[in-house]
């Protein structure tokens, strides 16, 4: 399924299954736009007066409120519970660009869909279809989880993190 078709189906299914959640999403997104990239495929998403528009991206020339990039391998790892969102962001497996307010609203829009999904069989079927199709690609099954922290850290920063109990806990 093309990314454009997938995102359109997500929003339409939400609208049909949970109209209140759809209204909340329209309110959160407003007239903003976002560039969404999954592997090499990118689209521009807009919610204008409750109407969804999904267009092909023209690349860096796009004028958007925010941008999110990830891969099918990352999404599969998130869905099967082997990767946390916080790890994915720290490992650059999810990259999000934009002003803080715009980033917040992008995540809120995702949360509205996730929150509605247990009561929306259509969204669950769409997720199953995504997993099925993405899993058929061997590259999408080879997610490599790099060790947090991926970039160099000064000793002072480690001391500060330790003092506030913010260092990663022992993993098993």
């Amino acid at each position, binding site marked *: 399924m093309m990314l454009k078709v997938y995102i359109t189906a997500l929003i339409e299914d939400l609208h049909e299954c949970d109209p209140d959640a759809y209204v909340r999403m329209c309110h959160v997104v407003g007239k903003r736009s976002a560039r969404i990239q999954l592997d090499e495929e990118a689209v521009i998403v807009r919610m204008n007066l409750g109407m969804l528009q999904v267009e092909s991206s023209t690349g860096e020339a796009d004028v958007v409120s925010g941008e999110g990039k990830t891969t099918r391998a990352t999404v599969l790892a998130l869905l*099967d*519970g082997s990767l946390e969102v916080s790890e994915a962001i720290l490992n650059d497996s999810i990259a999000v660009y934009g002003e803080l307010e715009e980033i917040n609203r992008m995540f809120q829009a995702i949360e509205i869909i*996730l929150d509605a999904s*247990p*009561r929306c069989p259509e969204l669950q079927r769409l*997720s199953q279809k995504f997993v099925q199709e993405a*899993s058929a690609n061997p590259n999408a099954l080879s997610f490599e989880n790099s060790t947090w922290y991926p970039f160099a850290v000064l000793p002072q920063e480690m001391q500060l993190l330790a003092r506030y109990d913010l260092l990663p806990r022992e993993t*098993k």
Partner: protein
Amino acid sequence: MITSDTLRPPFFIDHTAPAYKDWFHLNFADATSDTSGLINVSLHGSPWDDRSRAMGTVLLHSPEFGWTSHVEILAYSEANLGASSIGLRDVALAIDQRNGTIHASVAGASSRFRSRLLAEPISAPLEVGQKSPLGSGWISWCLAPRMRISGEWEIAGHPAACKNLAGYHDHNWGRWYWGDDFGWEWGCFLADPQHPEAPSFVFTRTCDRRHQRYGEPFLLADLGSTRKQYGADNIAIRLAGQFRGVLHRVPGAMAALHQEMAQPDIPAGLELVARRGTDRVHITFEGHAAAQFITADTVVRGYGFIHEIVGKYSSFGCIGGKNFETKGYAVLEYVI
């Protein structure tokens, strides 16, 4: 054994049917590989609601491979439901009504854990028939505290035959919505099936979501031929420490939604003391790893967070004039 233990779906006229919940649960531990695991199949919601879901959950922990999990969610119409069986595409569990034997299987090309297990009850089942209040509804359960498990499994591509694994089974059913103001604490302290004289223990108590107001605790000590139950007047429980390890959280979509629950305040262990007459039981449990299973209601907007804390326990005391001292595998379930 549990010869009449069947799923308890609501009748058509039951106005509480939307809150229907029902599950079969099997715990097991393998001393050879230090592996603890569970297989759970469950039903959530009215049989007449398209949103209702059958779920299969598998959680397995070993020091070598860490956590392995598999969660499967299907519509009732896509699942194979029998009087005492729930079969999904990859996870299935069935109880043989003639003798209480449980057949459990986990398959699936993407699963890191595959198994075919046969669990035989080696002591009598116990039915806790009454409805205990739980959130806006109630819960009932029955259990088989001692199971002997054999079969075969494959973890991360490593096959193994298993024999004489310690096991436990229960069946819970009732009416409640996930996200109601309730929680529970439950612990299963497995006896080694090779030593039938060693006791196994099961403890539980319900509570509010903050674990501040508790219902009556219950402790079952099963020694095969002898069985004792202890209640509120006999039991003292102390949750010990705070679990500081990394949680394995499933399903992934719900873990992504609930970032606020990535590091919840859950205990690292437990001490339980029961005294009645000349009986005394002292159990100390230390958790080594924990998983969080997030269960979402299919009708209302609500979530339950079921933590499975696996580890080892030691116990000593005297039951019915017989002294005992034992060690083994245990799981503490802490529900928020």
